[in-house]
């Protein structure tokens, strides 16, 4: 099977979900073509050179200096026509959600999004707020599959070599119907949750804004960063750049230490790739425990101060 993997640049580096998509593609197909769109991708190209791929396809054009759904969807359409892969595979990012449906409609092939795993019956996707899973398959046609964060482990990317090819795309000014301005942050923070090795993450179970300091104190003694779930950010207790989940960061730390987070699906999709998950929550039925390696059923406000004290003493 020939697979076209559409990669995403995250400020010039390869998006983690793109690496995971490459692992998924290597598992599914024999011949992998990786497409990278845009003009500033040297760092990504040197990384890709070490992977087992058939070919890396680069597309540069002055109309692709910044992302647009109009431009990117047109590029993927033209590359698809030229290489006629059996599948397009991509990470399920915000950008994917923004332009991949356009590719689906242009090519008249289905887009099966947010896939968590593959079975012999098809692609498995969470439905009904993750209460059930559905197995979905395409029929005799090509299809686009996007993989949810942590569907595959980036460490399993097969190493090898590949060749490069630049693809000449045909785009005219009138193809781009939108004007994109520079991305910005509302609250500037120099916190990089995605590369933190340990995260102490705080949820509604912390009860009050003043209790958030507990998370920061714990983070300090175990050399971690502090992250949070959406309700805590929406309450204004923690800055929005610390948010983990479908509308925040996608993280995969060595340890995710969750304090009073219930584990709604919107949060879980952003952190279930963590190598180890430890959760403290009063509610024994909290969904966070279903994905936890270590579960403490108890009160964060009692346990965490004690934990900080003991850690400080044992230093």
């Amino acid at each position, binding site marked *: 099977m020939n697979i076209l993997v559409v990669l995403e640049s995250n400020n010039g580096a390869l998006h983690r979900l793109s690496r995971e998509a490459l692992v998924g593609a290597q598992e599914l197909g024999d011949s992998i073509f990786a497409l990278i769109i845009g003009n500033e991708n040297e760092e990504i190209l040197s990384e890709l050179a070490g992977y087992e791929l058939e070919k890396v396809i680069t597309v540069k054009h002055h109309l692709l200096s910044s992302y647009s*759904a109009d431009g990117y969807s047109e590029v993927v359409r033209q590359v698809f026509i030229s290489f006629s892969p059996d599948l397009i595979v991509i990470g399920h*990012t*915000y950008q994917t*959600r*923004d332009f991949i*449906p*356009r590719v*689906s*409609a242009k090519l*008249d*092939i*289905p*887009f*099966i*999004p947010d896939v968590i795993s593959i079975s012999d*019956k*098809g692609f498995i*996707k*969470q*439905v*009904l*707020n*993750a*209460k*059930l*899973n*559905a*197995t*979905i398959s395409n*029929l005799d*046609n090509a299809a686009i599959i996007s993989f949810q964060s942590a569907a595959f482990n980036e460490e399993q990317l097969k190493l090898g070599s590949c060749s490069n090819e630049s693809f000449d795309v045909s785009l005219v000014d009138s193809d781009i*119907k*939108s004007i994109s*301005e520079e*991305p*910005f*942050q*509302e*609250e500037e923070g120099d916190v990089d949750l*995605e590369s933190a*090795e340990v995260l102490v993450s705080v949820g509604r179970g912390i009860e009050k804004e003043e209790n958030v300091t507990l998370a920061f104190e714990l983070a300090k003694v*175990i050399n971690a960063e502090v992250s949070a779930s959406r309700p805590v950010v929406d309450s204004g207790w923690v*800055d*929005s750049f610390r948010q983990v989940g479908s509308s*925040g960061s996608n993280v995969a730390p*060595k*340890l995710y230490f969750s304090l009073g987070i219930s584990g709604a699906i919107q949060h879980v999709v952003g952190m279930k790739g963590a190598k180890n998950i*430890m959760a403290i929550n009063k509610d024994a039925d909290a969904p966070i425990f*279903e*994905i*936890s*390696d270590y*579960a*403490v059923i108890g009160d964060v406000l009692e*346990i965490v101060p*004690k*934990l900080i004290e*003991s*850690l400080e003493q*044992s230093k």
Partner: protein
Amino acid sequence: MKIAVLIKQVPGSESALPIDSEGYWVDESSVTFVMNPPDNYALEEALLIKESNDDVEVVIVSMGPLRVQKVIREALAKGADRGIHILEQDITEKDPLVIAKRLSNAIKSEEFDLVLTGLQSDDTGMGQTGVLIGEILKMSTATLAVETIIQEDHIRIKRELESGWFQWVQLSLPASISIQSGLNTPRYPSLKGIMGAKKKEIHSLSATELSKEETLQKVNNVFVPQTNKQTEIIKGDIDQIVSRIIEILRTDIKVI
């Protein structure tokens, strides 16, 4: 300006979800249905645009069996002007591209300036209908809008990106835009609104007459997820819990 708000009726978050006898989907006879919560934010955004601009008509478009007229009525009670119901008896239809083609056919002649959708549905969660329609009807598209500003012949959208980043995008009209949940506070219908909604028009169309599109994907089955994670439950009094946590951090995970 004419705005279409696409609204889906989905199982409520508290609804029972028994799997049907073929294992194909949930047995809808014991499901309680509600307006898809993300669509409620799209509706509110349309009503806010209507209130702050002259000559705005808000039209609710919903596809499904007869029961979906309930959510159309609910939206009319909140202040939408009229409804279009695309009658689709085959409620097992779950191919987003087929759905988008049928919706596009149904609304094409209305020549909407703006199509607003929620970010995804709480049932199948495909999250693509609005963008598909935008492409099919040659509109500009944007997703995850957290703010919208209507200007003469275009619209400015503040898009949410990942990791706390945002971006302003200017789109030419007509445009199809998906709305991020939480950007506004959806209103409740007033009693006057509920009474007034009874007189508002709901135009019914039959989906199968609109197009006989071939399905390109299908749901084979649904099942209850199994977790295969080995979870250690840390028990004991508070001192035992704390010392076990420290032991795990130090010797199992080795982060301290």
